[in-house]
């Protein structure tokens, strides 16, 4: 079951430095939401706070509320490990585990959590996840080969397969295509289209056309100035965002008249 995300009054700190302030938004279930904005405005920071990956960085902390399917993520009783099992993440640079084969990489989430499963069940998960990531046809004959031997675009799709193999409810993607060529990018975008029937997807992107192509809703983040915290400028349906945005700053950024 895909779930929606409610973010209210979210402030994110790195030590004493306030990186992002006052974010309020509702991310709909089974849809794609894109985060856009200039570098350093806190898109990735907000994304990482949605599955508590943010706090992996020493000194990082969060104030405010993130509610997923009625549960507050930052409640003291919540286990961040349990959160990350429900909310998967794909990173900017493909990062398959170098010691594992393609097969083991896909199963990493299950195996590393010491889930016991039969061979047939494991095979089925691998095939389903790789098919889901549009990679099955390219690798089905060499599942035992190291994941690092694939091309960059294939590695990224392998990472997506690895993320969906644990069947999360939400998939966060941090600039998943920024290291990929146009063909691989289009493969990943097709994949996002296929996945949104089952998952809630949040994607950070620098590519405005990509945001327009894949997302239903778009959030535009901006900085007031250097050293100032980032903030959410506008959250709107993508169609409206790219044709008739509410805020002037959004229009300036989207049309390239930024700064």
């Amino acid at each position, binding site marked *: 079951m895909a779930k929606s995300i409610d973010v209210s009054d979210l402030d994110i700190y790195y030590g004493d430095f306030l990186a992002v302030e006052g974010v309020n938004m509702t991310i709909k279930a089974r849809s794609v939401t894109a985060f856009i904005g200039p570098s350093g405005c806190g898109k990735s920071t907000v994304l990482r706070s949605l599955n508590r990956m943010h706090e992996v960085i020493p000194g990082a902390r969060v104030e405010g509320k993130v509610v997923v399917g009625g549960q507050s993520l930052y409640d003291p009783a919540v286990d961040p*490990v349990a959160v990350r*099992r429900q909310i998967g993440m794909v990173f900017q640079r493909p*990062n398959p585990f*170098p010691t594992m084969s393609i097969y083991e990489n896909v199963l990493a*989430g299950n195996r590393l*959590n010491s889930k016991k499963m039969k061979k047939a069940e494991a095979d089925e998960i691998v095939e389903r996840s790789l098919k889901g990531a549009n990679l099955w046809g390219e690798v089905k004959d060499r599942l035992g080969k190291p994941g690092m*031997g694939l091309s960059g675009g294939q590695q990224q799709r392998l990472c997506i397969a690895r993320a969906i193999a644990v069947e999360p409810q939400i998939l966060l993607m941090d600039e998943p295509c920024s290291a990929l060529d146009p063909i691989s990018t289009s493969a990943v975008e097709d994949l996002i289209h296929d996945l949104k029937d089952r998952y809630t997807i949040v994607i950070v992107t620098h590519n405005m056309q990509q945001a327009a192509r894949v997302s239903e809703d778009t959030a535009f983040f901006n900085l007031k100035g250097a050293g100032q915290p980032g903030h959410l400028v506008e959250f709107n349906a993508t169609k409206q965002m790219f044709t008739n945005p509410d805020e002037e700053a959004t229009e300036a950024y989207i049309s390239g008249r930024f700064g």
Partner: protein
Amino acid sequence: MTTPTLERPSGGDRASLPLTAPQLPPVAPLLSALMAVGAAVLVGLLLSWSLIPIVVLGWLLLLVVLPTWSLLLEGRRKAVDRMVTGLVWSTFALAMLPLLSLIWQVVAKGAPALSVEFFTYSMRNVIGEGGGIYHAIVGTFLVTGLATLISVPIGVLAAVYLVEYSSEGKVAKTVTFLVDVMTGIPSIVAGLFAFALFVLIFGPGIRMGFGGSVALSVLMIPIVVRATEEMLKLVPDELREASYALGVPKWRTIVKVVLPTALSGIVTGITLAIARVAGETAPLLIIAGSATSMNWNPFSERMATLPVFIFSSITETGRYPEAQTQRAWGAALVLIMIVMALNLIARVIGRVFAPKTGR
């Protein structure tokens, strides 16, 4: 020295910049070497010098002849290049000289001592010819093996704490500093520490092989910590994050992702640390002592080891100095072979465990 500059074409005709220049033939270095050596030998024979001055003269001549030839034909830049190349090769040869002569000496003097008896007999009741180093080989393996068993868990876990858990706090800085200090501890001090410790526990005059292991692990732990720390730092944070994002707890991430990725480097570091302490003499002399009989029990009585065996063979020659010296050379050869084998094993392990790219 002025800095070399690109030579401008004479006459300022920029349109016809010459891209070809005269070059020495490829055999020029060999030819100059032959000439230099020939001249040196000739001078040496005329003045009836010994070998070493002849070699030095030949080398000096070569360093002069080739660059001069090059200067006349090829120009300044290439002459300097040939001269520096010559100097670099000379320093390399100089560095290899002691190593090769050491190996040559040990092999030449030690090889005659090797025999089946040498590897299968101890020195029990042997006076004069015969006997062997079986007891010392077993002792070295027992003592260093136990030292490895002690140091590897402590060293690797300490490094895991430093890299994965400490987040660069005060404790980590202190531990890192202490590890650095420990790296510099003279081995005799490590031996005295182990001796003092075991005297406190078991009373004065205690000798046991295990004490030697404790002393060696004092020397080994900092090396293992350092090697492991460096290797763990090389594991990209992206892999840790990828694992966390799959909902894997931190300890499983370390055990299943971080350590396997760094495994080849860690194992290589450990093997080199073993090779480093296997040849230690001073601490073993103090706490493990020396013995002529086989002792399989590291927890009681004196235990012979190869370095101590070499030391005592040379220092306590008795009435059969020749037999003693020959056994010492033989033991030295065996010790070098063991250390060399460990180095080779480290390389093989590094290859086998290295993350594969499949390309």
